[in-house]
């Protein structure tokens, strides 16, 4: 054995010792900081029995092409045992452009389903048991009208607004940092989120109006500490939005959930989630005076991220996905999703999506991950790392407040974007010089490999189908009703009233998403991106 022990530095910058023992937890009070599952501070999980009572929900991101094609994929996933849906919308829909908009050309139905009007949503959910399946809508800038469409569709399925379950992503602040599907300036965009939080708290209390995403911040380059820290700074802003509407924190904040990313070091990820759970409980209790334990529980989808996958030797991504799923289960995630092995290339084929689903099912059925709660608890290393990560996340959150003047200002000025880009550049340099090992890329590379993967193919003619359908809908609707409803949206936007009731009216009249967005742009303007870095 050599005298020099190899140095190990985690992506978070934490140095790892070769051995951990009881002395590493001294000063820590395990009973208080680790506690029991289902009890404050929820380090070990938010339910007393966790997966022993009910395994994690499996929710693959899916949607492409026409509503009929998406509907078919939904039904395939449900028939194969998936118990929730996560709807992917195409970029024009996410940006509020109709399929016939010149700026939508080439993108209609490409990375998700194209939704112009309520008619498209009706088709997408045709025959889907909305009362049993919880549906997540991955939409942000235009979350309000899409949530409104979903509520109307649910009603048509016989599910009243007060009973409708599901989640919208609706986290606009992270769109400015990563993912980039922003439309409106920061202030009115935040106000729209406030509208959805308030409306749901008062009229759709079982609905989760916002899912705060560290996921995309990390996918844009953030390290695991920054991922949690920035997401929590954002989440605190949304909590303040609800409080500013006169809601009690316990009346809505328990319906904010989180979406986090998994790739990289297994123990670092597990400790990250355990630390995040504990920290969120403390933030809600100590900073926002939450009294209800439900409000203090950090509920999350923790999914295998695309950032860990490689375009080289793509089948290796199946193996990576399995490890990410293992991490998610060891971390006590409520919901799991995996990027499929072909997603370094394009959106997944049916085969790839099914492999991801089976990967999660194998964990539940064969590997004993649901037998006992938080099985890594008490590990000297994991508990030490959990403490260390919590401490560093808190320090990063303080930096956002003290050095940047808060996350909203940091986003408006492009400071957080710049920080994340530079972190991405540092990581990329590590990949290119080999100091960050990546099998197939900078280790065991095969130069001559044939990258023959069966890929999802985009059919441009589906744009024509979408344009035709919307033209039919538009020609058969009551145009007087539509223009009155759009005017109501405009008035609500101008006068600072909650926009949701007028959104419900507008979508019910089959106003197009482009028409609604056009009205909002006239009132709110558009975001001017700070591009300096």
């Amino acid at each position: 054995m050599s005298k020099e022990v190899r140095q190990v530095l985690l992506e978070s910058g934490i140095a790892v010792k070769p051995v951990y023992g009881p002395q590493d937890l001294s000063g820590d009070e395990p009973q208080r900081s680790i506690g029991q599952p289902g009890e404050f501070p929820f380090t070990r999980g938010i339910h007393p029995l966790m997966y022993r009572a009910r395994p994690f929900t499996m929710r693959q991101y899916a949607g492409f092409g026409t509503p009929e094609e998406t509907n078919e994929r939904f039904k395939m996933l449900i028939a194969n045992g998936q118990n929730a849906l996560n709807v992917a919308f195409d970029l024009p829909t996410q940006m509020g452009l109709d399929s016939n908009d010149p700026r939508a050309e080439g993108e209609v139905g490409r990375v998700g389903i194209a939704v112009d009007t309520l008619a498209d949503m009706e088709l997408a959910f045709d025959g889907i048991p909305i009362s049993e399946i919880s549906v997540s809508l991955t939409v942000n800038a235009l979350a309000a009208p899409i949530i409104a469409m979903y509520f109307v569709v649910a009603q048509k399925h016989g599910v009243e607004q007060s009973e409708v379950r599901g989640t919208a992503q609706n986290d606009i602040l992270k769109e400015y940092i990563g993912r980039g599907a922003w439309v409106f300036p920061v202030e009115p965009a935040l106000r729209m989120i406030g509208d959805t939080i308030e409306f749901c708290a008062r009229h759709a209390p079982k609905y989760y109006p916002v899912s705060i995403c560290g996921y995309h911040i990390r996918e844009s380059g953030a390290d695991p500490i920054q991922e949690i820290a920035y997401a929590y700074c954002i989440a605190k802003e949304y909590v303040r939005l609800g409080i500013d509407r006169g809601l009690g924190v316990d009346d809505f904040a328990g319906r904010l959930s989180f979406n986090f990313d998994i790739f990289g070091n297994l123990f670092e990820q597990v400790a990250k989630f355990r630390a995040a759970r504990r920290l969120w409980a403390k933030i809600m209790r100590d900073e926002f005076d939450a009294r209800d334990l439900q409000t203090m529980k950090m509920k999350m989808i923790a999914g295998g991220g695309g950032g860990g996958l490689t375009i080289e030797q793509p089948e290796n991504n199946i193996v990576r996905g399995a490890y990410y799923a293992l991490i998610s289960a060891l971390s006590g995630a409520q919901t799991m999703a995996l990027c499929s092995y072909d997603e370094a290339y394009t959106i997944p084929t049916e085969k790839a999506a099914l492999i991801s689903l089976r990967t999660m099912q194998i964990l539940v059925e064969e590997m004993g991950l649901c037998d006992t709660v938080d099985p890594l608890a008490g590990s000297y290393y994991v508990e030490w790392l959990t403490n260390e990560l919590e401490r560093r996340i808190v320090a990063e959150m303080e930096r956002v407040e003290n050095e940047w003047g808060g996350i909203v200002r940091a986003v408006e000025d492009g400071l957080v974007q710049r920080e994340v880009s530079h972190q991405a550049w540092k990581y990329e340099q590590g990949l290119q010089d080999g100091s960050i090992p990546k099998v197939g890329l900078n280790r065991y590379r095969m130069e001559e490999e044939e990258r023959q993967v069966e890929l999802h193919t985009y059919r441009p003619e589906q744009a024509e189908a979408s344009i035709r359908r919307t033209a039919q809908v538009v020609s058969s609707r009551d145009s007087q009703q539509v223009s009155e409803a759009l005017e109501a949206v405009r008035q609500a936007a101008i006068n600072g009233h909650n926009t949701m009731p007028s959104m419900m009216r507008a979508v019910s009249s089959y106003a197009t998403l482009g028409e609604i967005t056009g009205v909002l742009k006239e009132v709110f303007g558009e975001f001017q991106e700070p591009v300096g870095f």
Partner: protein
Amino acid sequence: MSRPIKVLIAKPGLDGHDRGAKVASLALRQAGFEVLYTGLHQTIEQIVEAAAQEDVDVVGLSILSGAHIPYTEKLMARLEEIGLRPITIVGGNIPAADVARLRALGVDGVFPTGSRFDAIADFLRARVQAPQPG
């Protein structure tokens, strides 16, 4: 002394994945290039206008939504229309089968996800004729 090679990195259309564009910009800047970045959601007309105004040597598109063929077609047509001939490169989620299609459209270099930055820098240095002293 010749001026540095001037590169415009552009994000056409609606795709918001800008990690690659920003990282490539930082890498090229580090390698001595002068780099301008358009920011997100640009039309091809806006990109070409910026390229003409800034008199760049290179226009690089970064596209991760899969719409690289239609955007590149539009870029090449627009450049032709106004008689601008920068070196053109395209990066992003480009399946192997599409590399030849992009080359056939007249793109000088295609750099899919995972390409090495020194390869991009070397390629551009070789392709951009040494600029005249300014």
